């Protein structure tokens, strides 16, 4: 994951106080940040607060910022710290606890609970089920690696765990996915995958 062409130009303009560049950076990354934030906390209010804090912070501290190799990676790291901080603050813990009592029994993850609750209307199954059956940590690592295209090293930094843990988590997650898929989907159709020889 490195900067796309133009990212760094925007970043440099933003650092000089260019409000338009700041707005563009926000628009460019708000969706991916929001999506990633949901992996850390299913509470969208927490994610939204963290995103706002993040952008206010970088605007206020813009003059002291360096030029990151990847703006996206840089923003993801800050977002995770922001969300962790909100979640570990005493006030938030209280709030969360109340919500948990309402929605979540201790044995079920938030997502499985949602699937069960909405099961009648929305058939979240097969493929997407497979991902939701993983631990939230595995889901987060998978999200960073396969959807957002971060390297193992970057994931270690973002999640604040060792490189070895990243590797183990991903390996376990993929194994989990494979087992679920093995059970759910006939591999008969695999050969219809398009692998084209040029």
């Amino acid at each position, binding site marked *: 994951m490195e900067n796309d062409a133009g990212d760094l130009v925007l970043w440099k303009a933003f650092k000089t106080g260019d*409000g338009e560049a700041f707005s563009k950076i926000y628009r460019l990354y708000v969706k991916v940040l929001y999506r990633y934030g949901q992996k850390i906390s299913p509470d969208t209010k927490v994610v939204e607060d963290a995103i706002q804090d993040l952008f206010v912070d970088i605007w206020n501290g813009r003059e002291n910022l360096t030029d990151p190799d990847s703006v996206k990676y840089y923003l993801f790291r800050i977002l995770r710290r922001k969300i962790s901080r909100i979640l570990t603050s005493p006030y938030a813990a209280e709030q969360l606890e109340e919500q948990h009592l309402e929605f979540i029994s201790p044995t079920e993850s938030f997502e499985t609970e949602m699937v069960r609750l909405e099961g009648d209307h929305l058939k979240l199954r097969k493929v997407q089920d497979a991902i939701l059956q993983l631990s939230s940590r595995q889901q987060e690592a998978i999200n960073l*690696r396969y959807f957002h295209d971060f390297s193992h090293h970057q994931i270690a930094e973002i999640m604040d765990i060792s490189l070895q843990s990243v590797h183990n988590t991903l390996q376990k997650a*993929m194994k989990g996915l494979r087992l679920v898929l093995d059970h759910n989907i006939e591999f008969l159709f695999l050969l219809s995958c398009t692998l084209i020889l040029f």
Partner: protein
Amino acid sequence: MGYEDFTTDDFATDTYFCRWVLKPDIQTDAFWMEWLSTNANRSREIQQARRIVLVAAMEPGNDPTEQTIDELWQGIEQRTQSKPKIIAFTGWRMAGLAAASILLLLSAFIGYRYVFEAAKTYETANGEIRRLQLPDGTMVTLNANSSLRMPSSWSHGGAREAWLTGEAFFKVKKQQADGHPVKFTVHTDDVDVEVKGTEFNVNTRQDKTRVILSEGDIQLRLVNSKKEMLQMKPGDLVDFSKAKQALAIRKVTDTRSWYSWKDNRWTFESTPLSEVATLITETYGFPVRLEGDSTGNQKVTGIIPSDNLEDILASLESILDVTTEQKDKQIRIQPN
């Protein structure tokens, strides 16, 4: 440990393998196809790992609504002192051709076309995506059911031209001759797309030509009216309708999502199921029957793996309240 000893899970977590599955290019394609041909007994693991990686890349999360995005931004503005101003990003914009500059081509077109003594044609079948490197270094990703025709070679510094039906993504290499940039032209039935070095997507399906530009500049010329020319900027999407014989231009925020097909994924944002059905037919060649009156109007939002029909149908079932059935080379989608 070499790839020979890899298990399915090892492949699925290997960086180079994942790059091939999710962001394939000509090098990774060449490497893995070569590897598969010498390790044919491992094709099951490879296929299995491909599928797992594609599933892992699916995102069950939700995008924020435009309203949320705007509200969050207003909050940020209020809390930052210098109040950076909002700039409009989305919305349809019709630009009359009058706004486009008009250039008289005179007789330059005569002698312009190549005589195809030994033309090369690249073609793709149902469900097939092919990556090509042209003699000048330009990379082309040819979508399913498409063809690209070009002379067997280009003279250095001479015009670079190719003829497209179907859909393709181009990453054109800049070329100079005598200090001047050499243009690259993609011809379709409707328009000529002229560029110097840039990335863009051209789609000639559904009785129209659609061009999406992500980088650099493009000049569009109507085939029926060589005098008319339209200058495209990054983020522009242009449709030329055969029936109306008219161009429509609009801005899109995320050009990449429009050609994510080249990375084996389809991106939908409130896309009617009927459009998804058309896409399936164009790509896999099977007719899709939508049962029920409003089924076609159901909206699909999400990113789904596109290189396997089974996965596409399973994804639709998980996103919408529908059941899919594939039988006798026909697909049926019905509400539950």
